[in-house]
């Protein structure tokens, strides 16, 4: 190493260190801001309690079939599981705490969605909840959901104040793929991308990829709007619309790739990379062979 290189090494290391520190700082700033996901921002209305304005399921028009939540043995087991796994943040009666919002009035579909996708129990509270292996089985998740749905919103009687219930069955046989595509591209692709690969939102939040989602999870997410996702009511998207969208999502996550290897469906970014690195790169290697090296 010449003296010049040694002279250069210290400033270079300094610059790299500064760059690394600033990236870490910005990154952690971003993370810190996304704790907003756990607590609503100041001034925002309580978006997690949709009491009074909610449109409940209005009959079966093909597609998703909503059942009334059954209060009974399921709810009792659910309460045990809830106290075990959820009450440390959400409170023993799901009333919420400084760390987590209240769940009363959310309805069973919301709770079921978060639990069966493994997002709850939350792994890293300062980050957006990530899908992971659920710790509860499907039945257990239903039980927890039934328990939460059985909790009364103060001032309301019966199930009127509850959010959407877990869909009983999802019938895709009458679903129209093309109509689903049109609706998907109007409502969903703006956050989840055209090929349902997910997308970036602000301050570290993101819309997840829909590839691992089951039809049930998609239906629940559409109706309950988890996290930053908007909530789509029956009046806005009918059960038929919902079935169309679900069928389209199942298609677009494994679409017809007639052109060959799909490069991850990311789009022009990867295409450009491959075009230059593989296309021009291979041709440069060919030039190395044909031409002289000196």
């Amino acid at each position, binding site marked *: 190493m010449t003296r010049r290189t040694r002279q250069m090494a210290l400033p270079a290391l300094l610059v790299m260190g500064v760059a690394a520190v600033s990236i870490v700082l910005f990154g952690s700033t971003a993370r810190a801001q996304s704790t907003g996901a756990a607590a609503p921002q100041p001034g925002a209305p309580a978006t997690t309690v949709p009491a009074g304005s909610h449109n409940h399921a209005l009959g079966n028009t093909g597609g998703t079939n909503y059942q009334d939540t059954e209060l009974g043995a399921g709810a009792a087991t659910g309460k045990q599981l809830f106290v075990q796994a959820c009450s440390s943040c959400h409170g023993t009666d799901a009333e919420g705490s400084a760390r987590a919002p209240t769940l009363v009035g959310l309805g069973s579909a919301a709770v079921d969605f978060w639990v069966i996708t493994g997002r709850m129990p939350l792994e890293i509270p300062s980050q957006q909840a990530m899908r992971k292996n659920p710790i509860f089985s499907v039945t257990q998740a239903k039980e927890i959901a039934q328990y939460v749905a059985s909790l009364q919103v103060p001032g309301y009687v019966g199930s009127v104040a509850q959010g959407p219930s877990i869909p009983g069955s999802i019938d895709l046989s009458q679903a129209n793929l093309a109509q689903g595509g049109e609706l998907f591209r109007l409502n969903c*692709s703006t956050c989840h991308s055209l090929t349902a690969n997910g997308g970036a939102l602000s301050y570290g939040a*993101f819309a997840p990829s829909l590839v691992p989602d089951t039809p049930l999870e998609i239906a629940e997410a559409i109706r309950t709007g988890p996290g930053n996702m908007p909530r789509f009511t029956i009046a806005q998207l009918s059960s038929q619309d919902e079935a169309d969208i679900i069928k389209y999502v199942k298609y677009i996550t494994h*679409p017809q790739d007639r052109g060959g290897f*799909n490069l991850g469906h990311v789009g022009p970014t990867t295409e450009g990379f491959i075009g230059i690195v593989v296309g021009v790169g291979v041709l440069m290697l060919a030039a190395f062979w044909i031409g002289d090296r000196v």
Partner: protein
Amino acid sequence: MRGKAAEAGKKAAAKQGRDLDERLGLASAGRWMLNYIFPDHWSFMLGEIALYSFIILLLTGVYLAFFFVDSAHEIIYHGSYVPLQGVKMSEAYASTLQISFNLRAGLVIRQMHHWAALIFIGAIGIHMCRIFFTGAFRKPREINWTIGLTLMILALLNGFFGYSLPDDLISGGGLRIFYSVFESIPFVGTWAMELLYGGPYPGTAVLSHFYVIHVFILPLVILGLLSAHLAIIMRQHHTQFPGKGATETNVVGTPMWPGYMAKSGGYFFMTMAVTALLGGLAQINPIWLFGPYDPIRISTFTQPDWYIGWLDGALRLWPNWETHFPGHIIANTFYPAVILPGIIFNILYAYPFLEAKLTGDKAYHNLLQRPRDVPGRTAFGAGFLAFFFVLLLGGSEDVIAVAFDTSVQSVVWVLRVGLFAIPPIVGAVAYLLCKELSAVPSAGKRPLANVIVRSVDGGYAATPVELHPLEAEHHEELEPAPVGHVFVPEPEPQLVTAGVVSPASAAERTDRGPAPATSAASAPVQSTSASDIPGVRQVSRQGTPGEPAPRSGRHLFFPRRSHGGEGPNGSNGDGAGTGPDSGSD
């Protein structure tokens, strides 16, 4: 029988050739053409990648033009792609679906067309870098640099117009952004865009206007400029790297016929092969997954093709400034998408003249410089490229944010800072690397192998290997370009056994004097080394008696050549090494 037919055939061909020559006078010009010499270095083939990709674009484009319908008229789709059945779309989009699904070779040709466009512009970029970093744009080639830069800009534009033709959701979004950017131009912006789009956005005729420009106008202009580009090269002859007998007044290399035609023609087909492989196996622009364009629909993760991606990055990274005058504004998009590329291209256009002024160098240059020998220019170019790449990264900020599990905000700020911090650092590093490389005489050179000879009593002796003449060609050391300073070579370490490696031959080997020194240096060494050691059999690669002695082929092209020293120790002594073939002046 066959001989007679062949004879007759040859006679007929000769007669035809004579007839043509009598009418067109092809013989002398033709001969000049066939004798035209191309330098052998691989970096001269980068421009060919671009040229051949353009030809591929023309060929595949003609096929596509037969089947594409350039109409924005809305129809209901009833074709074979089920997920879009019954969807309202433009005829352009529908025809692209037809090409992709219903023509037997449609999709592979369509994808080849798109991949060829990416490779075309990538190759132009790399070719431009080669021209820049080796100083090939200096007098008398400034005009060709200007033409080449214009070709690059036209290629960018044509690519943009081309991928906007299918009218899918992603490229349609790009059309909207293009409209907004150019309508922000003061005075004429809104008027010009209405002209191009056929009315206020979305306009009635944008697809058909773009079609005429993409298929007709720009390819013609590109063809014309390309022909001028090639004609000027042939008129001025190629530049070349110094070494191997290259001078400012000659060209050393392979003639057009038959060598270069074969190599370059082969390269054309190899370019087609790579494009076809990508076109068939790697899906690109699957517009059926995107849906037809609709001004109220959009998606995330939408980037333009990479050669426009740097402009998208500029749009994303630019702060939200807007300039207000009484009654008028200069909109935000004007600065990053009109002014910034204007500045960048103007710097590039002016560069040959700027550098000539700065260095005071107004001489003709036909010999290239190694980048390490012009550290200032190399540093500037490296910094410029770094700036471009940061902008390119900026265009994919949301993809980066999700891929690295961080926020868009932090990516944007890192890139904003990086836009100013990284180019100077890269430039400084490049500068220092150049200085390092020039300071070390053997940098980048392949050292010769040594043959280890073992003596009877266990001693080892090392002699430089005698190369086969073909190997000698490839082990030819690059003559260092004339530089202002004089460097002192580091002394060779002395081997333990005295007398084997004489200091004189060591010095010859390291400072790489006029001759390639392979054979010239080896002759005296061998005569003092192993044969002096009793009982040792000489290991040599000279020819056995009866076989012609190997020669190092490089310095044989001047009529005046000394045949000296074809002795038992092999190679013709290249006394010619000290002659006019010493290469660089």
